[in-house]
C-alpha cells in the first residue's frame, strides 16, 4: 500500500498580487517502508512539497492521501493530530525548544499525545531506549546550548520517533552538519528505515541521497525525473554514488 499518494499537486503563492507557481502538477507515490530522497536546485520547491504533503501548508490544487486517507478535508486540529501521532519531522537547523532540556524536548510530543496522562512511565522508558540507541543518553538532562550539532540532530531524530510515527519527513537533515556528523545521522535514518519507518527526505547532498532507495529530481516545481537505487546496502555505496552522480549530471545538477 502507498504510504503517501500525491496526485496533480499544485501550490501557488501570491506575492505582491503576482502568482508564483511553486509546485506544478506533482504526482508521486511513496510506498510503505520506502526511503525516498528529493533533490533539486535551491528554490525549486522541495521544502514546499514536504510541508504541503504533510499538511502544514495547504495545497492549491491536487490530491494528497496519507495512508489512504485524503488530508484535504481534514480540519487543522485533525491534521495536527495526524502529525502528532503518525508523522515525524526533522529539520536542517536543530530546532529544539531552548528552555527545555534535551530529554524534555524528546518526550514533549509524546506527553502531548498522551491526553489522559496515564502513560508517562511508558513514554519515559521509550525515550530512554531511543536515546540509548542513538547514543545520546548521557546528555539527557543537558541544556541544548551545551551539546554538539550532531547530538542535537540525533535528539531531533529521537523526538521525531517518540510517537512511533509511520512516516518521517526530513528537510535537509544533514544540511548544517559536518561530514562526520552527517554520516552518523544517515546511519540512524537508514536503521530506522530498516525497522520499518517510511522516510521522505530533502537533500542537497548526493552522498546522502545515495543512501536512499529512490531519488526524485525536482526543478521549477515539477518532477523532472526519478531514479531507483534499490534497498541500501553499505557495501554497494560507492557504486550507488557513481550511478547517482551520473544521473544527476544528466538532470542538470
Amino acid at each position, binding site marked *: 500500500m502507498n504510504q503517501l499518494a500525491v496526485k496533480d499537486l499544485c501550490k501557488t503563492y501570491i506575492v505582491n498580487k503576482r502568482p508564483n507557481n511553486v509546485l506544478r502538477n506533482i504526482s508521486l507515490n511513496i510506498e510503505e517502508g520506502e526511503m525516498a530522497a528529493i533533490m533539486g536546485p535551491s528554490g525549486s520547491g522541495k521544502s514546499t512539497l514536504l510541508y504541503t504533503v504533510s499538511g502544514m501548508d495547504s495545497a492549491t490544487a491536487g490530491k494528497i492521501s496519507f495512508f489512504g486517507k485524503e488530508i484535504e478535508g481534514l480540519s487543522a*486540529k485533525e491534521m495536527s493530530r495526524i502529525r502528532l501521532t503518525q508523522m515525524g*519531522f526533522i*529539520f536542517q*537547523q536543530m530546532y529544539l525548544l531552548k*528552555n527545555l532540556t534535551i*530529554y524534555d524536548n524528546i518526550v514533549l510530543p509524546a*506527553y502531548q499525545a498522551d491526553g489522559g*496522562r496515564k502513560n508517562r512511565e511508558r513514554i519515559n522508558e521509550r525515550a530512554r531506549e531511543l536515546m540509548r540507541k542513538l547514543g545520546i543518553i548521557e546528555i539527557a538532562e543537558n541544556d541544548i546550548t551545551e551539546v554538539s550539532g550532531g547530538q542535537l540532530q540525533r535528539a531531533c531524530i529521537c523526538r521525531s520517533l517518540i510517537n512511533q510515527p509511520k512516516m518521517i519527513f526530513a528537510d*535537509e537533515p544533514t544540511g548544517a552538519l559536518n561530514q562526520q556528523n552527517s554520516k552518523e545521522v544517515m546511519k540512524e535514518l537508514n536503521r530506522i528505515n530498516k525497522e520499518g519507518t517510511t522516510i521522505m527526505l530533502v537533500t542537497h547532498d548526493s552522498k546522502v541521497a545515495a543512501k536512499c532507495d529512490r531519488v526524485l529530481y525536482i526543478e521549477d516545481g515539477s518532477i523532472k525525473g526519478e531514479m531507483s537505487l534499490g534497498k541500501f546496502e553499505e557495501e554497494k555505496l560507492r557504486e550507488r554514488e557513481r550511478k547517482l552522480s551520473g544521473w544527476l549530471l544528466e538532470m542538470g545538477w
Partner: protein
Amino acid sequence: MLLHILKKDLKRKHSMNIILLLFVIMAAAFLASSVSNLITIQGAVTSFLEMAETPDFITIALSEEEKSDIDTFLKDCAYVTEYEVIDCHTIMEDEIEIISCANDPGRHKYEKGNTVCIETVPEHLMKVFDQEGRLFTLKEGEIAIPKLQAELNNLQVGDILKLSCGDKQREFTIKLIVKDAVFGTQFMGFKRLFVSDQDYEWLYGDSMSVHTLLYGVNYEDKDAFMSEFNQENFQVVSSVDGGTIKMCYVFDMLIAGILLVVSICLILIAFLVLRFTIVFTLQEDYKEIGVMKAIGISDMGIKGIYLLKYFAIALFGSAVGLILSFPFEKLLLFKTMANLVVQDVESRAEINLLCAAAVIFVVILFCYSTTGKVKKFTAIEAIRNGGNGERFSKGSLLCLHKTRKMPPFVYLACNDVLSNMKQYLVLTVIFCMGTLLILIPLKAIHTLKDKNIIRSFNMQPASAFIDSGNMEKYIGEKDDTLLISDLNQVKDALKAKGVEAEVWLEKEYVVSCYGSDPERLCNYYTSQLIGKEEEDYDLIEGKLPVFPNEIMVTEKTAEELGVGIGDYVYYQYPDREEAFLVTGLYQSMMNMGNGFRVSQKAVFESQYLGGLFVIQVEPVDDMEEEELKELLHQLFPAYKISTGNEYISSMIGGVLDQMDALQMLLSGVVLSINVLITVLMMKTLITKERGEIAILKSIGFSDQAIKGWQSIRILIVLGAAIFFGTLLSEPLSQLSLGPIFGMMGAPSMKLITRPFEAYVVYPVIMLGVTGTAAYLCASSIKKVDLKEINTVE
C-alpha cells in the same frame, strides 16, 4: 542603509510602534490635563474664595435680638480689621414647603439635610454668585438656593417654594441656583437660601423667633484674635476659619491629584514599553548594526536613526495627547466647576503645552540612554552571532517529566516564565502597577462605604437614622427632659410594635477650653451621647471617658492644645473653670477632625448646647434595615428615616459618586493598558519565537494548544502581578490614603476591603479581559511558516 532599516522597522513593527504611540498619547493627555486641572482648581479655589470675600474667621451665634455681645467685642477688638454680621433665620421643618417641582410633581416636603437659613443677598463678606460667577439681586417673590440644596430636592429654576413664619407665609419662585463659596461644599453643615430684603423684612422682621447671626471677621493676627475671642467664651453654634473652608475644596483637588498619579504611572509604563521595544529592535537589527559599523557608520549615526524614529513617535503622540487633553480636562473640570466659579480656564493652555513638551523631552532622553547599547555591538560579534539576538537563555528550572498531570502546553508556559524571568519583568511591573491603580482607590471606596465609617463621623453604627427635621427645637430648652421624652417616645412606639431597640443621639456643646497653654483657647464641639449605655467610638489610644471629669480628645485637637493622655483640658465658664482628665485619643471626620467627647455622666448647662445629631436606632435583635425603616416610617410619617447606608451616602454621597466615577475611569484605563501591553508582548514574542512555534506545529501541537501556551504565559505573569499588587496594596494604600483621610480628620482610619470585590471580581475581570486579548492576539501564530526559518541564509 539607514533609511532601509527605518523603513523595515516601520513596516515590520507597526503594531509595536502604534502601541508605543498610544502610550505616549495617553501619558501626554493625562499629564497635561491633570497638571493643568490641579493648577486651575488650586487657582480657582483661591480666586473664588477671594472673589466671595471669604473672611478669615466665621462664627455663628444665636441671639434674641439682631445683635449680640459678639458685636461689641468685634467693634472693640484691636486685631479685627473688618467684620460683618448677617442676620439670618434658621428655618424649621414646617416653615418651608415645595409648592411646585417640575422634576418631581408629587414632591412637597423640603429636604433640608443640614441646618438651613434664610437671609438676604450678602453685599460685602461671604458673597454668593450665579452660575456664571456674577453677582445678582433678587426681587420680591424670588428666592435663590445653593446647588447642593437644589440637587437634594430635585429643584430647578422656576420651581416654587413656600416660606412661612408664624402666621405669615409667602410663595417664592426659584430665580437661580447659586454658588456659595463659603458654605457651598459638602463638608459644611450649614446652607443658606436667599430672598430679597423686602421679603426678609416682611417675613421675619418682627418675628419673635431666635435670630441666627452669621459673623464674618477679618483679622490681622490670627493667634492674638483667636485667643481674645475664645477668652470671651461666647455661646456660639459653630466657628470656622478660612483655612478650614479652603480645606473643604480638597476633594476637588484630590481627583486631579489621583489623575496626576495615574499619568505618572502611564509615563513610567510608556518608558518601560519604550525600553522594551528599543531592546527588542536592537536585538533584531543586530546584524544590520554590525554591518553598518563594519562599513564605518559611527555609533552616533546609528543611534540617530533610532532617535529620529522615537522622536517622531514622541512628537506625534504628544501632539495628539495635547489636543485630547483639552476636552478631557473640561470633562474632569465639569463636576468641579459646579461648585466653583472658575475664571479664565482657557488661559491654561501653556501648561498643557509644557507638559506635552516634557513628555517629548523625557522620551528622547530615555531613548538616548537606552540606545547606548549600540556601542556594545561590534562588527565581528554581529557577523559571528548574527542569526540570533537571544542571549539570555537559562536552563529549565522545572522538568517536564517531573510534572505529573500538567498538560504540556501549560508546562511550557510555566517553564518559559520561570526561565526567562527578566524578559517578563517589565510585564509584571506594568500589571502590578495596574493592580495597584485599581486596588488603592477601591480600598478608599470600600472604606467610605463601610458601615463602620459612621464611627469616623463621631457616631456609633446604627440601623436607622431619624431626622425629625426640627432638631433645633431642643436648643434653648432648660434641660434634656424634652429630648429624653422624645427618645423614649420612639423607643416605646417601637416596643409597642414588638421591636426592642436602643434609641440615642449625640449632643454637641460649645464651650471654650484650653490645654497646656491657657492663652491658646479653642472652642470645638464637645460631644456627649444620650439614650444609650454602651459607647463605641473611633478610639485610637487610651480609653473612653467614664467619669464625669474625664474627656477624650481627637488627635488633631490634642496636638493643637498640646495635651496627651493623662493631661488636663480646662473648660472656661464665665464664673469658673472645669478640668477634664484626658483618657483617650480618638478621631473624627466631623469638623475637620477637631472635637472632644465626654462621658454621659458629665454635666453641661443646657445653654451651651450647640447642636444635635439625628436620632439613631438599633434593634436589640437582628432586623433588616429596610424593615426597620418601613416600620419607623409608619410610626413617624413626618420624619425623615434613613438606613445606615442611606445616611452615610447622604453625608458623603457626592464624594462617593465622584469616587465611583473615578474608579470606573481607572478600571478602564488599567484594562486598556493591560490589553495594549499584552498585544505588544504577544506580538514581539510571536516574532521572536517563530522557530519554537513552528517546531510545535510540526510535531503536532494543535493551534489551540499553541495559543494556549502563548496566552497562559501572560496570564501567569498577570496572576503573579495581581498577587504582588495585592500584597503591596496594603502598605501602599496606608501610605497614600492615610494622609488623605488624615486631612479629613481621620489619620488612623482603618482601611476596609471587601475581599470578594477586590480579590475575586476585579482579578477575574482583569484575567478575563487580558486573557481574551492574549488569546485573540495569539491567532497570528497561524501565519508562522516553517520554511522561512528552516533555511540558512
